[in-house]
């Protein structure tokens, strides 16, 4: 009985994988022979991030926790869902909040906002855990010092991406969280109005640092969280920071390979 269903299915599968369309996409046979396993890894642009063979300990879940990979996957999920959100969301004080409400209530399959927000929270946690794993296996030691540094920048970028995104719904939670966060910039030494020594930056009687040009102003584009801030954060969140992060991830993955693959005892 089972055979009656399976036999045609496997025949159809064979038909499909032998077809010209399939073989034009996947250049190599099934990865059941060692030769094909190697060819598959090398000829696929996504898989070729990996080596063909790897030390057994290094690919174990108990060693890497797959945390870096999970972080990267979350980044991809966030890019995709973020793109869909951009179809609806307009970064103006007038429309932002209403667009978010629409997204949740009127847009079909309206869980993109949830996927995006929970994914972002999750990514912050997985970056921390990835760093914990890398530290606890001593994987920052030579020759991987530089890649650890790239990682730290990626950690900061992840937090900044999350922080800039937090403002976009333009609700009470959003503007006050950003207000609290950006208030700190006021206290930047030399460059903030309430920072140490900034009062000493004067030209004659005119003080050079004021609320209209200090570090906080540069961050917000205004004296308080407002339309310029929303636009600034939107551009950083949707274009600037993701580009930099994607670029550094490429460097990060490249270096994982060039530094000898996943770390292991000498």
């Amino acid at each position: 009985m089972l055979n009656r269903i399976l036999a045609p299915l496997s025949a159809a599968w064979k038909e499909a994988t032998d077809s010209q369309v399939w073989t034009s996409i996947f250049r190599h046979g099934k990865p059941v022979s060692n030769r094909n396993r190697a060819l598959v890894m090398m000829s696929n642009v996504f898989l070729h991030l990996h080596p063909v063979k790897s030390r057994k300990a290094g690919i174990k879940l108990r060693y890497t926790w797959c945390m870096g990979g999970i972080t990267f996957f979350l980044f991809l999920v966030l890019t995709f869902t973020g793109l869909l959100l951009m179809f609806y969301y307009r970064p103006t004080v007038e429309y932002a909040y209403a667009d978010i409400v629409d997204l949740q209530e009127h847009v079909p399959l309206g869980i993109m906002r949830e996927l995006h927000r929970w994914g972002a929270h999750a990514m912050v946690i997985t970056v921390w855990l990835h760093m914990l794993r890398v530290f606890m296996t001593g994987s920052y030691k030579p020759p991987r010092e530089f890649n650890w540094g790239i990682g730290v920048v990626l950690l900061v970028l992840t937090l900044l991406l999350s922080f800039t995104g937090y403002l976009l719904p333009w609700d009470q939670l959003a503007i006050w969280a950003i207000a609290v966060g950006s208030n700190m910039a006021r206290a930047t030494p030399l460059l903030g109005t309430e920072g140490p020594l900034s009062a000493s930056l004067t030209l004659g009687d005119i003080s050079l640092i004021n609320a209209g040009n200090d570090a906080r102003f540069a961050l917000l584009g205004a004296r308080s969280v407002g339309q310029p801030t929303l636009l600034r954060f939107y551009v950083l969140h949707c274009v600037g920071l993701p580009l930099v992060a994607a670029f550094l991830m490429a460097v990060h993955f490249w270096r994982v390979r060039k530094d000898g693959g996943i770390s292991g005892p000498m």
Partner: protein
Amino acid sequence: MIDLFKDLVNWASGPTVLFTIATLGLLAAFRFTQVWSKTSAKVFFAVLAVFYTASMWDPDFFLIVAKPDNIPITGVIFLVFFFTWFAMHQGIQNDRRSAGEGEVLEKQESEKVWVWPDLVYTEMLAMVILSIVLLVWSILLAAPLEQPANPADSPNPSKAPWYFLGLQEMLVYFDPWLAGVVFPTLIIVGLMAIPYIDTNPKGNGYFTFKERKAEIVIFLFGFLILWCLLVVSGTFLRGPNWNFFGPYEYWDVHRVEPLLNVNVSDFFWVKLLGRPLPTGGFFAALMREWLGILMVGAYLFVLPVVMSWPRDKFPTGFKWLSCHHYFEKMGATRYYLGVSLFLMMMSLPIKMYLRWAFNLKYIVAFPEIFFNI
């Protein structure tokens, strides 16, 4: 009985008690490494899960913990505990192996294997599971949306996003220029500097504790206590006006906590000499703050030098301060960079205890130029 328990938990989650218990607990776990066993993990997680679930019946606990944006914090608690245990557990097991005849596990598994299918399938499974988790989470729990933004109506408490609450908690003890600017910068620089400061060649590419004790103790103290614990308590235990509230307490906006904080200059001039603070001009301000300046200067610039001396230069009782062997091993540049970063990190717990013990506000205070330490 239940009320007694709740009072006890409320008391134990106060900043002073919680921080002390957590620090001592962590240090004890490094001293008695048997606790990183599977059995104690099971017991620990069972207790944590029971505590968490049972507490959900308390309305005040539920109100805070079940807030949609606070869900990640519950994730942080369980995941950080689990993975810290997992890393330490494997480290201790490897230490046992290498203490006997054996080799660490990662060495035993040195042979090369095909990435397809061994790794590719794991990754695919991870993606599928994660997708399901995210989908279920998103279907069950709507993303929060509060009232439209109103710049005229600031909520109390106003909180930064949860991952920055460790920094916001620091604001209790330090001015914004330190808590919000200098310390974040130092955290980033310090993290990046780790590979260049740490010259210990051992423990590269496998879990171990024995071979990297100092590094692991310092890093985990920073990560678990100074970062994660402050994030968790900043989210769950800080209410209106950033006052502390126990997990079973109602967030009362009207609760007033007396602030009787005093500066080092007050201690010296007013309490010790019985005189008013010197006033008038730059030099009077310097006079006022001389003791604080001396203390900070000694901590940051003299202590690292003193700590580099050999043990026999120290009187008995202070020999533990000697880091001479690190100085020898690491060389002057690495040693001074490492010790300075370490002392900067330790300035947070030091300032916390000074506050709790003496109500100390500022060690050095030049409010005239916003330069307060």
